[in-house]
């Protein structure tokens, strides 16, 4: 087990520091902070609402992640396949699960770094009023879990192509579907022809409905299990795809 974690951490470190070897990290962090602040203060009308909470900040996260998570995750496997380093990687004494987990965790913790950098907004709202910090903490946690779902899905899809642009587009569309599944309009259109149970299944898969519950400070077991199991399912499929598609 110790050796398993050791190798996983070597992969994690290479991937995590990899973000900072190119301008990708700084561009991403800058775009994320600028967009999240811009949306909160201008589109979310943070000051005009006159409420000491961060709803106008978190409400944009599913939409921000929709674009930004595929941007982080598109390179995870597509680049390895394009450059041929997958052959080098997979002839090292390492398990596929260590590679997939190491890469995924690196991108997930990089996202955590971006989320942590928004803490000044939390401080601001505490300076201006008396928010429920418990709800804000749960929203932060939920936001990170949702980012993990987007990333694991992107990582999985980036194994299917050698082209990072294709990986980005396919991942964005897939993430969009996962978000939109909970939208009233989509559910209404499904409800018109499908049985009730099918509509409920579609709704239960929506990132948006689960994240909305978290936003109100409700991190119940169902939501928590949903996000974690989504991540685990995507990672398992990713491990299977690595074995299946490595030599294509």
């Amino acid at each position, binding site marked *: 087990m110790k050796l398993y974690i050791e190798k996983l951490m*070597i992969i994690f470190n290479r991937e995590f520091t990899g973000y900072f*070897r*190119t301008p990708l990290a700084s561009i991403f962090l800058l775009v994320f902070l600028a967009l999240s602040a811009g949306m909160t203060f201008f589109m979310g009308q943070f000051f005009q609402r006159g409420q000491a909470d961060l709803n106008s900040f978190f409400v944009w996260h599913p939409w921000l992640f929709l674009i930004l998570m595929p941007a982080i995750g598109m390179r995870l496997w597509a680049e390895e396949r394009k450059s041929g380093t997958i052959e*080098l990687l997979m*002839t*090292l004494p*390492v398990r596929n699960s260590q590679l997939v987990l190491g890469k995924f965790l690196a991108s997930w913790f990089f996202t955590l770094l971006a989320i942590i950098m928004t803490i000044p907004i939390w401080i601001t709202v505490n300076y201006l009023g008396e928010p429920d910090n418990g709800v804000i903490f749960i929203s932060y946690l939920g936001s990170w879990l949702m980012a993990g779902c987007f990333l694991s899905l992107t990582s999985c899809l980036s194994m299917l192509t050698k082209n990072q642009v294709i990986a980005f587009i396919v991942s964005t569309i897939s993430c969009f579907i996962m978000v939109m599944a909970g939208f009233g309009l989509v559910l209404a259109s499904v409800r018109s022809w499908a049985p009730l149970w099918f509509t409920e299944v579609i709704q239960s898969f929506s990132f948006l409905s689960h994240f909305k519950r978290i936003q109100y400070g409700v991190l119940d077991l169902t939501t928590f299990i949903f996000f974690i199991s989504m991540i685990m399912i995507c990672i398992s499929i990713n491990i299977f795809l690595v074995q299946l598609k490595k030599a294509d």
Partner: protein
Amino acid sequence: MNLLEAKNLYKSFGNINAVSDISISLNVGEVIGFLGPNGAGKSTTMKMLTGFLEADSGSIEIKKTDLSKDPINAKSIIGYLPEGAPSYSDMTVKSFLYFVGKMRGLKDELLEKRLEIMLKDINLSEVQNQIIETLSKGYKRRVGIAQALIHDPDILILDEPTDGLDPNQKFEMRKLIKSISKNKGIIISTHILEEVEAVCSRTIIISSGKVLLNKETKDILKKKKENLDSIFRKITK
């Protein structure tokens, strides 16, 4: 001592039979030259020997360890340079070799020693802190060789190690392969026939996924009284 024993390997991609009934045995001190025209199945065979591809049938034993049953231990005995010498181009030479060494399970102290030896023996000292992307093709190839040798493996599998090198670099590379071959088993795939004559103790010629010739290089040259070039052309026609 036997290092590698591959028996009756088969591999097909759809309707194409890439490898049909190839068997290879590699002993300590042996350098096998793996020859064949483009698309003969050289790289596919090497990918199977290193555990990157699974054979459709047949068995591969690395120092008595079954590659399919215990791939982690079997892979740790092999050093492999894939075709085109891929490496992480955004890393420096030293950090890349350090990464591979760590993945190979070398402890810090030993890894530092091996790094020093690699940088010196493969003439990488002057570019050790350079980003791999900025290196010439020759240097990139040397980085590939260094990562394959970092853990001092018993078996070395090199897919076209001198491709893209200038004549001086080729000479140096052959000298290096010869110098390390005494206590290792090496398999080299190449298009360059003079390379086989210069460094390989055994020659295997394959075409359309089948072994056409598997003999000691000196015996081939002695018996036929002609050079390897004409023998190659004759049997792979």
